[in-house]
């Protein structure tokens, strides 16, 4: 008889505990700060792409989910500081296991991961994300490439002064340089 009440006791006590059920999708809680969500290809403060098309992310990927083709920057058509940029960039989210090794491999901090995780679809083709989908949005002061280097004369200026550039008002720097 006691066993009977003991069992119901568990049920009853649960009624006073905090509910763990997530009301998804009505309620959309943020993931943990360092959650391995969808990738993003970052930009320099003037909008130039950080990706140099080195393909190290593709090489680091244990699931072979990343495909990169590099291209040559020219003075007329410049997408990133330096010689090369990622002309084609695809991540296949059917294959991606979210391990984050690509992020570790990236030498320019171009590839990072966001907290966004809603990547389900009923069409396999749609789950191969292209460069346009992965590029970070243009923030204020950024300009859609191709355009010349606004924040220095060579790629070194971008990399050496990178941290400080992040904090300054880009439009002011570009205006000051008279470009």
């Amino acid at each position: 008889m006691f066993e009977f009440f003991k069992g119901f006791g568990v049920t009853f006590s649960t009624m006073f505990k905090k509910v763990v059920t997530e009301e998804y999708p009505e309620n959309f809680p943020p993931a943990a700060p360092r959650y391995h969500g969808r990738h993003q290809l970052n930009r320099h403060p003037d909008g130039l792409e950080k990706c140099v098309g080195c393909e190290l992310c593709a090489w680091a990927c244990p699931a072979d989910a990343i495909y990169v083709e590099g291209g040559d920057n020219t003075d007329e058509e410049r997408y990133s500081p330096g010689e090369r940029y990622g002309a084609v960039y695809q991540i296949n989210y059917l294959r991606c296991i979210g391990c984050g090794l690509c992020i570790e491999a990236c030498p320019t901090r171009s590839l990072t991961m966001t907290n966004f995780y809603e990547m389900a679809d009923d069409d396999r083709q749609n789950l191969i994300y292209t460069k346009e989908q992965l590029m970070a949005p243009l923030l204020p002061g950024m300009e859609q490439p191709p355009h010349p280097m606004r924040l220095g004369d060579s790629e070194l200026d971008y990399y050496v002064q990178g941290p400080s550039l992040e904090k300054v008002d880009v439009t002011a720097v570009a205006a000051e340089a008279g470009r």
Partner: protein
Amino acid sequence: MTLAQDASTDTDPVPEGHVRLTIDGRVIDAPKGELLIRTCERLGIIVPRFCDHPLLDPAGACRQCLVEVEMGGRPMPKPQASCTMTVADGMVVKTQHTSPVAEKAQAGVMELLLINHPLDCPICDKGGECPLQNQAMTSGRTDSRFTETKRTFPKPLPISSQVLLDRERCVLCQRCTRFSEEIAGDPFIELLERGAEQQVGVADDKPFQSYFSGNTIQICPVGALTSAAYRFRSRPFDLRSTPGVGEHDSGGGAIRVDTRRGTVLRRLAGNDPEVNEEWIDDRTRFAFRYLSSAGRITRPMVRGADGVLAETSWTDALAVAAQGLAAAKEGGIGVLAGGRLTVEDAYAYAKFARVAAGTNDVDFRARPHSAEELDFLAGHVVGQGPEVLSYTRLEAAPAVLCVALEPEEEAPLVFLRLHKAVRKHGQQVFHLGQWTTPAVERTSRGTGAASPAAKDNLIPAVPGAEAAVLAALPSHVVDALRGGGLGGGGVVLVGERAAEVPGLYSAVSALAARTGAVVGWVPRRAGDRGALEAGAVPTLLPGGRPVGDARARAEVEALWQLPSGSLPSLPGRGTAEILTAAADGELAALVVGGVDPYDLADPAAAITALREVGFLVSLEMHTSAVTELADVVLPVAPDAHRAGSYVNWEGRRRPFEPALDASGVLPDCRVLDTLAVEMDVDLFTQTPAAAAGELERLGARTGAAPAAPAVPAGEPRRPASPGQAVLATWRQLVDHASLSVDEPALAGTARPALVRVNAATAERLGLTEGAPATVRTARGMITLPVALTDLPDGVVWLPGNSGDSRVRALLGAGHGDLVEVTA
């Protein structure tokens, strides 16, 4: 490589010319003079090294190969560089495997080399195939003790349009400078500065314009030299490598074709000690973008009723072509094969002409030619293999005479051998030519242009007078070719330009008979020699059988399963005669392979003939002057997409396999076979292997070689007025060749296009050095800056197809013709 046998006991006698030493406790006999590092290699002991290269002289520059050496029971005070030390009797050597001293020394050198080497392996082109990376990973420190800022240089430094230098990565092994000095002989790069600032560099006014600069990129043991065309394109582990053969010249150099995602990304020199050793020229290395150039034809095209070429299906195009050719058979069909064919394709053209077109009007010579040349080829060249004259034999010859051949421009691998022979064996190389070209200078035994020896090895001749000069050679040249009176030994190399000089082939033949020298024919194009063997010539059937010989025809008929007497017995016409006949309506149709009309002696007449002929079928890779006029255009496969083989100038078969997917494109032999089937005959050349097999079964001719030609030496043209000069011309290695398209970095290393005259002639014509001069014929004119050179009086030299100097297309003139020259 054979491993050396350990000498079993100390009591065995040491073989003659050998010494006995101990390496890591093992006793070994080594030939005197062998480098210690090689002896270790033969024992299977790998001593790490960067500067050491078996084909370069020892330098001891990188100090990575330090070993401990004991001589006569006394240890040497410091570790010794095993790449510069030769073996000696009683030496006791301890490598890093047995000696802590050597191991520590090597680790120290490695740490020193890495002090200023950037840690950019992940983005370095060499990463993955880098000796420095490999050795740092296997035996280097796991962490760095160096905390200071590394020395940096601005990078990349373009030392030519093709070669980029990254000085931070350089470990100063001097492989590149030694290659330039010793192998190519054009030291454009040198070590500059001293100490920590020491670096490889070029003179400000002289970029690295060598035809062999690509080899320095390949032998660089770090990523200091990179190629503009390959930089950042790929990593070694992405690439799929296929052995191949150079298709740009007749040298037959072994190459390695590296592909990725269906495109060729780079080509490297293969290692074939018998042919190209480990070197190739830059055109063979870099000129492969023609595979993806805008002009590539990928679909068959037929000219419709509206006169416009339109893409169509293979079945339609072949049916139209076969119908047109069958209708034209009565009127006669001419076949122009072109000089870029593999031997299998050339065989298909030869058989197509004989069997499907029923004619001997087939010729591979897409350049000025002569009947004398055919006689010479039939008598001296066809059927000869490397057992008669090879690179090895050429290198060993005491004296070589180049006739109407500019080895560096036309056959760079031959030039490398001649340069090596001059340097290593003191070979005497004579050039029957017009001026002291860079090749003449660098194959002389003296140094520099100013030295008298440089002039000694040039035998100058006015264009057209070469035959007469050859008949009256200076006695020291004749003696040298005789091998210093020992009978034979010398080699005479003759180039395709000889066909433009009447009597020159006969004079070469007579000279060979007089001196016992071996004759080698070095054509410029890769396919010429193979086409000759395959019978794509008007007077010879496959295997060098004369068409006039009934027994030879019967042999071929038997194998081709033709009714007896069905092969045409009259000798056919050469390229120029075929085109004349087509223009006059004597031939109703032409089948044209890879022929550029602007390479022919008279381009205007060739274009007229192609336009006038009733029916024109073109088998081409790219749109050209021929495809513009053709009724049917059939695309053919480039080498990267097919198997096949070339026959190089030695007569050596050089087979290759497809580097890229072979589906979707057809080689010439397959296209011709299918075309012939549509015409109701079968060639049995569906695949290159089938064609090669049949050619193999045919074998060589059994009869004696026909007599060599005996054409009297021609007279050079004499300028009629003071403003005239005799034109000397040949093509440069890097020029407007149809297979060198879309390669701006390579084109940047081309030699400049200049008009060359000597000082006296310049004064007479009123020309000044550096100022423009105009060379004119009735057809057109060429204006280029003047350079004063040691040409004979009254002779003007132009590059054949470089820069603005398209001699045949613009002037309609050739070697030995008269031109007007004005300031």
